[in-house]
């Protein structure tokens, strides 16, 4: 029989009705909904045993004690390890996401190690009488720093350069009854956050800076001074210039300055931060003993200030930025290099630093991949020794900065950290604080091996208090504001102390909220004529870079707040003149 159209339609109708009485359609409905729970692109976190491991954060010299919650061996969350005498279990926003650093998009993954080594060797060989081989160490006073100094001593015309930081001076917040800070972020990342917060009730904080920073908003008194007029205020308070003149220069009222001067008189001891014009009183700034080092290391190159090197004299420059430290503007470094092809090697884990300028960029391990010690923080009166221990394996491609430099200088590669630990143990002073059990023991009661084990399981050696420590002066121990450079650009720069680069999760703090200023972002008063979030160009005499604009009525007109990322620091310092124009 031939099938008619009518029959086909009937058949179709029949099956349509039939399907409704089977599980098929309903199950498909359920399954598609379930599929939407785990469709492609949604990761399934790895499961495993939850363990706690301890280390020290090496993202800044605070070196806060860290407790890492690990699944298997992989850290999934960091928190401050409690009970620590200095960091008090506190951890800052950047440290909390430190375990993301190995995976940041700007990570340097591989580099021309052999070529770089050859170029350095060649450079050293070519190095003329008036030329130098320089190792630039962004974070001095580490054990690695000692290796660099010894290496530079072993190399002809070797120089060891650091951003001038005097590691032999410490600030004692607990002694101060008044803290006068010239734009130093006392409560926002300066020193050891936990320590500053713990000491806070003990002192009255006076914050002198042009913009109400986080510290200023927490201060007992905020003095809104003109940018770059810190020195003027200091001179006024020190009586070097008349109050009227100081008021003139800072934009404060004359009586404000007089009152402040009186306050400093009565309410001592006074700790002055951010200016070396004004004396701190009492023993708020003392000299700190050096953490012991093996005797044979003493034959090391002295610390040289970059400025003291003649221009066009550096033949070989090796920059170690494996440990973030104070960033020297590239312009300042560049003019020291010899004219005919100098050798510049950057040992970096992020492409956003000197890697932008060096011709050889070598990948290095990053916290928490590598072992290294963290020098004592500025606000640690006692010398300390604590290790940042590896929590995750370092990629094969990475080089060890110390080994690279040592090899270049023909130094034998040894376990310097262990040697240092033994030297400390030999000195047999101070105490060992271990994080897992939050216990302190006298170092002399600990065996050398146990000391080493303890340091690697999360511990900290703290030197014995030194009551005879003489009062000292902060020269430029705290990043001091540089003077206004001459230029007719309309805006005055105020750097905000944001630490970059960090984990992408920090986008919560700037991109997904306006709590902080993001990398390459500028904040301006709403009257500036630009829209919130507009793309713009930030320009100083030294050059320009693209930025995003945030409007903030808290910024006085005529000022521009800039987050201090390397790209920006290459262009300006606080107090510099700048302009922000449409992109």
């Amino acid at each position: 029989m031939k099938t008619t159209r009518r029959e086909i339609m009937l058949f179709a109708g029949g099956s349509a009705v039939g399907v409704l009485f089977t599980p098929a359609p309903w199950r498909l409905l359920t399954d598609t909904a379930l599929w939407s729970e785990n469709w492609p692109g949604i990761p399934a976190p790895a499961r495993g045993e939850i363990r706690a491991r301890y280390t020290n954060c090496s993202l800044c010299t605070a070196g806060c004690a860290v407790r890492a919650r690990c699944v298997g061996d992989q850290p999934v969350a960091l928190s401050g390890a409690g009970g620590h005498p200095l960091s008090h279990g506190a951890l800052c926003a950047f440290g909390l996401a430190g375990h993301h650093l190995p995976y940041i998009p700007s990570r340097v993954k591989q580099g021309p190690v052999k070529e770089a080594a050859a170029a350095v060797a060649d450079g050293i060989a070519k190095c003329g009488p008036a030329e130098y081989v320089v190792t630039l160490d962004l974070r001095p006073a580490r054990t690695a720093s000692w290796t660099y100094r010894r290496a530079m001593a072993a190399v002809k015309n070797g120089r060891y350069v650091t951003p001038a930081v005097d590691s032999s001076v410490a600030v004692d917040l607990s002694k101060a009854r008044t803290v006068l800070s010239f734009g130093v972020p006392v409560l926002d990342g300066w020193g050891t956050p936990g320590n500053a917060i713990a000491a806070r009730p003990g002192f009255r904080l006076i914050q002198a800076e042009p913009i109400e920073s986080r510290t200023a908003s927490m201060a007992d008194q905020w003095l809104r001074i003109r940018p770059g007029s810190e020195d003027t205020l200091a001179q006024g308070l020190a009586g070097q210039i008349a109050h009227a003149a100081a008021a003139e220069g800072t934009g404060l009222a004359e009586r404000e300055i007089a009152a402040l001067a009186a306050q400093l008189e009565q309410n001592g001891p006074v700790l002055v931060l951010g200016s070396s014009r004004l004396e701190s009183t009492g023993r708020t700034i003392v000299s700190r003993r050096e953490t012991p080092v093996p005797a044979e290391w003493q034959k090391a190159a002295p610390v040289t200030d970059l400025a003291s090197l003649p221009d066009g004299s550096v033949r070989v420059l090796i920059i170690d930025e494996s440990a973030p430290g104070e960033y020297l503007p590239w312009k300042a470094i560049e003019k020291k290099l010899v004219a005919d092809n100098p050798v510049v090697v950057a040992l970096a884990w992020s492409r956003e630093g000197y890697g932008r300028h060096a011709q050889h960029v070598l990948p290095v391990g990053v916290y928490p991949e590598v072992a290294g010690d963290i020098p004592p923080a500025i606000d640690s009166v006692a010398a300390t020794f604590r290790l940042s221990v590896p929590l995750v394996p370092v990629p094969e491609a990475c080089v060890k900065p110390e080994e690279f430099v040592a090899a270049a200088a023909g130094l034998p590669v040894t376990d310097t950290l262990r040697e240092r630990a033994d030297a400390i143990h030999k000195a047999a002073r101070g105490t060992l604080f271990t994080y897992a059990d939050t216990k302190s023991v006298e170092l002399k009661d600990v065996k050398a091996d146990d000391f080493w084990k303890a340091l690697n399981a999360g511990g900290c050696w703290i030197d014995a208090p030194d009551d005879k420590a003489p009062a000292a002066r902060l020269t430029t121990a705290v990043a001091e504001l540089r003077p206004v450079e001459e230029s007719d650009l309309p805006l005055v720069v105020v750097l905000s102390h944001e630490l970059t680069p960090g984990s992408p999760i920090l986008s919560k703090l700037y991109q997904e909220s306006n709590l902080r200023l993001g990398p390459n972002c500028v904040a301006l008063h709403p009257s500036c004529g630009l829209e919130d979030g507009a793309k713009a160009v930030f320009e100083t005499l030294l050059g320009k870079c693209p930025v995003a604009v945030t409007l903030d009525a808290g910024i006085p007109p005529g000022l521009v707040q800039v987050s201090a990322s390397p790209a920006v620091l290459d262009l300006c310092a606080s107090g510099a003149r700048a302009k922000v124009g449409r992109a």
Partner: protein
Amino acid sequence: MASPPRPVRAAPERKTPVDNPLDNMDRHFIARGAVRCSTPKFLLWMAPWAALLVFGLYSAALCLIKGLNQTNMDNRFAFGLWIFLDLTVIALGAGAFFTGFLLYILKLDELRSVINSAVVIGLVCYSGAVCVLAVDVGQPLRAWFTFWYPNVHSMLTEVTFCISCYLTVLAIEYVPIVLRNRKLRQVPSFLVFEFELHKLIYVLAGVGTFLSFFHQGSLGGLYGVLRGRPFAFREGLAVWPSTFFLFIISAAAVGPSFILLTTWLVQKITRKRLVRPEVLQLLGRISGSLLAVYVLAKSIDTLIWINRTSPETGFQAWQYYSWKPFGTWILVAEIGVCGLLPALMLLAPKLRRRTGWLVSGAFLACAGVALNRFVLTVQTLALPTLSFDRFLSYTPSWQETGTFLAVVAYGVLVYSFSFRYFQLFPQERELKLEARQVEEERELVGRY
């Protein structure tokens, strides 16, 4: 749809021009006694709308595939253009249920001449709204959860249930209109089916009315219950906030106006008389009287809200209107210019008899309700609640607008199609015959 201006006498249905076979290939589908323009002309009319629809579907697809990041909505403006659209079209579509209610339950027989058109409009509005809702949710695959795990306390559940049920009702009501198509009548079983269905129509009208009352209300409740948004929050009568009832009245009021408006529009575009003027005036009267009731209720509600509800939650009502551009003018426009004014225009018999007044009255009424829905959706979300909030602005992305336009295009297409092939206006035929007689009489007079 627009037909050529040909002398009426030249168009008795028996001798429709067949000079060009291509010209009217679909004439066997066109209702007996109705004259429609030629097929190419019809297609020409449909083409741009179809294009718009395609564009709209494309933007909707983007939102479905790439996600709602394609829109300009955000965490603070969680609802945008689409919700405003839904609330408005559903209010305008209320004509379907209300006319049905008046015709079949209250036996207002004059309305029979617009009921079909009303049903089509209703169907268009509701199906359009449902489609947009499906795009508006982040996980359409889970939409059915609302039926499987319903939260009976949620106004949205009420809305979802009622709208989906009422949409079915509308579909069933639409079927007879389709089946009465000249060609389809030839299938005997269809005729039977249609007849059977028609016996149901009173039940359907009843059910439809009930459902509509509910979801119109719960759409209002949607915002009225938001105690976290003092600007929208209203105190309740029984379990429902006052907006519940305001929405029912306003929808009922504006429904007839919208039918009036569309009918007038179709007449203008097609240059045909489709219904007797009395019918439109009746619609106007109904709309006007209900609008008057609404304006009264709305005013009382607003006063209560300003003097009690809002202050009790710590918000002084006047400060809502201190955020420009949403000044008090919006209140005046909503209740006065687009509420009281049209009510009076439609209630005054003299004015009502003038088409101009009638139509502009109806238009204002519709505009008023649209404004009301806008205020409730957009202004509510724009206003700050926390003291450190900002006043927010929002402009829809082209994808949102595209989806919005798709609904409009879809509406025009479905309506045009129905108008061409189905008997939307039963009076059309008799009106045409009358016109012819008048014509002939005039000729006779002229001869002698």
